[in-house]
């Protein structure tokens, strides 16, 4: 298995980076894969940004719109300002810690991949030196964040703010929900990276997966901080 993978990788590298003068095929392939994956991630993040840009602009527009009161026939504002649950701060803290832990995982797996790329058979490295503990911790923190968001939703519902109560609550559920769905994608990617580790994929493969997942995760953290500030200051 190991030898087959290595041969295929060398061929791929030659095909993909024909003509570029680099020392070893393994390191050459690793950097090429990393560059491509990061480029793809930047493009994907652009798409996610567009989604949240649309929601932010819709939020601002909808907030300024009056509604007709059928009883009095006058225009009133139906936007009820939302008191954000304090529990959100704990969730934010959890996510901020997770962005540190995944960065540690990313650096560790990158170091390992760089070392492996210098060695001829990359699969010989033991599975415990690949940042797995940090990945596992990040996964736990990510799931805790989502669980915390769920508690926030329950708290909000208990205080009478449902999805359709007021446009402010609609947007609250929408923004937190969409962020949660995207973070769930990050958690799935973490699990896939963990599975790659268990399935004994090469250190480079793991490192590429962990790298893009980590950058995606940083983006998710940044996005969450943005959403929180937006919900607080554009109340």
């Amino acid at each position: 298995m190991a030898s087959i993978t290595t041969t295929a990788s060398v061929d791929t590298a030659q095909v993909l980076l024909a003509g570029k003068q680099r020392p070893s095929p393994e390191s050459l392939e690793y950097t090429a894969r990393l560059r491509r994956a990061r480029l793809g991630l930047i493009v994907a993040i652009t798409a996610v940004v567009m989604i949240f840009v649309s929601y932010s602009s819709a939020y601002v527009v909808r907030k300024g719109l009056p509604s007709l009161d059928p009883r009095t026939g006058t225009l009133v504002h139906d936007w009820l300002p939302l008191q954000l649950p304090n529990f959100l701060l704990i969730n934010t803290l959890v996510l901020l810690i997770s962005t540190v832990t995944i960065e540690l995982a990313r650096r560790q797996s990158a170091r390992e991949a760089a070392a492996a790329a210098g060695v001829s058979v990359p699969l010989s490295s033991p599975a415990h030196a690949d940042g797995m503990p940090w990945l596992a911790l990040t996964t736990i923190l990510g799931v805790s964040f989502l669980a915390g968001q769920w508690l926030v939703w329950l708290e909000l519902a208990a205080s009478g703010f449902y999805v359709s109560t007021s446009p402010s609550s609609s947007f609250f559920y929408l923004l937190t929900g969409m962020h949660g769905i995207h973070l769930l994608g990050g958690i799935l990617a973490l699990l896939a990276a963990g599975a790659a580790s268990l399935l004994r994929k090469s250190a480079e493969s793991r490192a590429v997966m962990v790298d893009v997942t980590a950058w995606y995760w940083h983006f998710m953290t940044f996005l969450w901080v943005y959403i929180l500030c937006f919900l607080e200051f554009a109340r």
Partner: protein
Amino acid sequence: MATGEFAARAVHAHAAPTSWIRKYVFSLDHKVIGIQYFFLALTAVFVGMFLSLLMRIHLIWPAASLPLLGDIKPETYLTLLTMHGTIMVFFVLTTAPQGGFGNYFLPIQIGAPDMAFPVLNMLSFWVTALAFFVMIAAFFVVGGAPLHGWTGYPPLSALPAAGPGEGLGADLWVISIALFCLGALMSALNFITTTLDMRAKGMTLMRMPLTCWAWFITAILGLLAFGVLLSAGILLLLDRNAGTSFFVPLVTINGQLTGHKGGSPLLWQHLFWFFGHPEVYIAILPAMGLCSQLLSVFSRKPIFGYKAMVYAMLSIGFLGFMVWGHHMFMSGMSPYTAFAFSVMTMAIGVPSAIKTFNWLGTIWRGRIRFTSPMLFALGFVSLFISGGISGPFLAQPVLDIQLHDTYFVVGHFHLIMGVASIFGIFAATYYWFPKMFGRMMNEGMARWHFFITLIGTYAIFMPMHYLGMAGHLRRYSQLTELNYLHGLVPLQQFMTYAAFVTIAGQFIFLFNLFWSMKFGKKAADNPWEATTLEWTTATPPPHDNFGGHIPVVYNGPYEYSVPGAPRDFIMQTDPATVKAH
């Protein structure tokens, strides 16, 4: 989004599959995926065409009862036009040029073995196919397909009680659009990464064929536009099913309050048209790129103003995001805002004129070979001019007040967005069929198809401009109470008869397509004597596109009739040739 997973698998050049399922159904090969997209679009275009046929029949024989379908009621007519528009815009005009031909030829033309992320590529096709099945399913649920038009304006599209088809049918419509957006976003991701990261040695950005530039810019537009439509679709689903009021104001149906209040239908229009206007360019940019290519190949001349063509496409793409408001002049928008949108819209006339000028410059004094792809490319230029010229009319708020929602608009966008893009698809089919299927298409049938389609589509859509100027509103199944429209009935009849002939002509194309796959003349590797990379490889291309070797590019894509060269064309891979400049 498990980006990491796709990314990690992506760079391994996958081995040629052996099982039938991996080879033809869940294939990772961009060429197979391109053909899958092509046949999806082919299926969709015949469904969409059939719906338009029913509309044309109903317009001149309103009382006619059709076999199997029965009477066409007014609401059925609305269903027909909704599904016709949706299927044609999304599953034909967006799917075939980009997903179909782009998928097949972008990697080959830039010298790559495959797309950057093959798994993602497969996924984007199957999500798009699923979206199509969901869309078609809307015909077969209780209440039938929706009737809110392809633009899906709320409150009509947001309230299940608003009409038949606005229940489950409309939910399926929104879900289908959302799925389509996901597929289009994944596809855009792949196109952009592939173009930026997978070009062969020597294939600089400014040596890419204009087709690749067009697919690249289209992918950027798709990336920025489809996310917005997806967001809007999710809001609409919430309004429909979760009782929110993003788009729905206080409305009553039969005196009953719906429970919604305060939402803004205009908010939907802004979000929709922020996607909807770039979507026009998503449909037509690939055709522009292709026709630039074909005019050069078949005039045996370099493209006139390559850089100007690239910058014109970039500025069309950029300006395309600034003009969505021109669809909303009638919404009560401030005249100052309307003025800004109007000026921006007319500014698009400048790059469009540059392109047209360069096309004419390219064929000027060329040794033109009137092959079937060339005919369709010339037809495209003709349609682009005649359909585009009415754009500056509609871009002026004062004229738009008269022309809005009339047949003038229908004629305008069918010529420019519909038929011109379709001509691009036809040109691409005739041009690349030899490379894709290894045989030439029948030239005689292709000529019949061309002349019937060109004359037929002009005969259908030109009179619509007159109908519109006379004040005939679109989207009405019958306007029998309006006396001033009686005089226009013969024109409507003429258009329907023209539609019969044009649709009959499309079966020539369909027959030619399948007949040539089996019985066409065997194609050489470079039957058109063109210069780009797809003509350097075998016909059809091997699994890794170039059969184990990697092309190295030395020349630009349009080296035709170079003085002093041994042949009248220099392949992009020809090293050290005598160059005139």
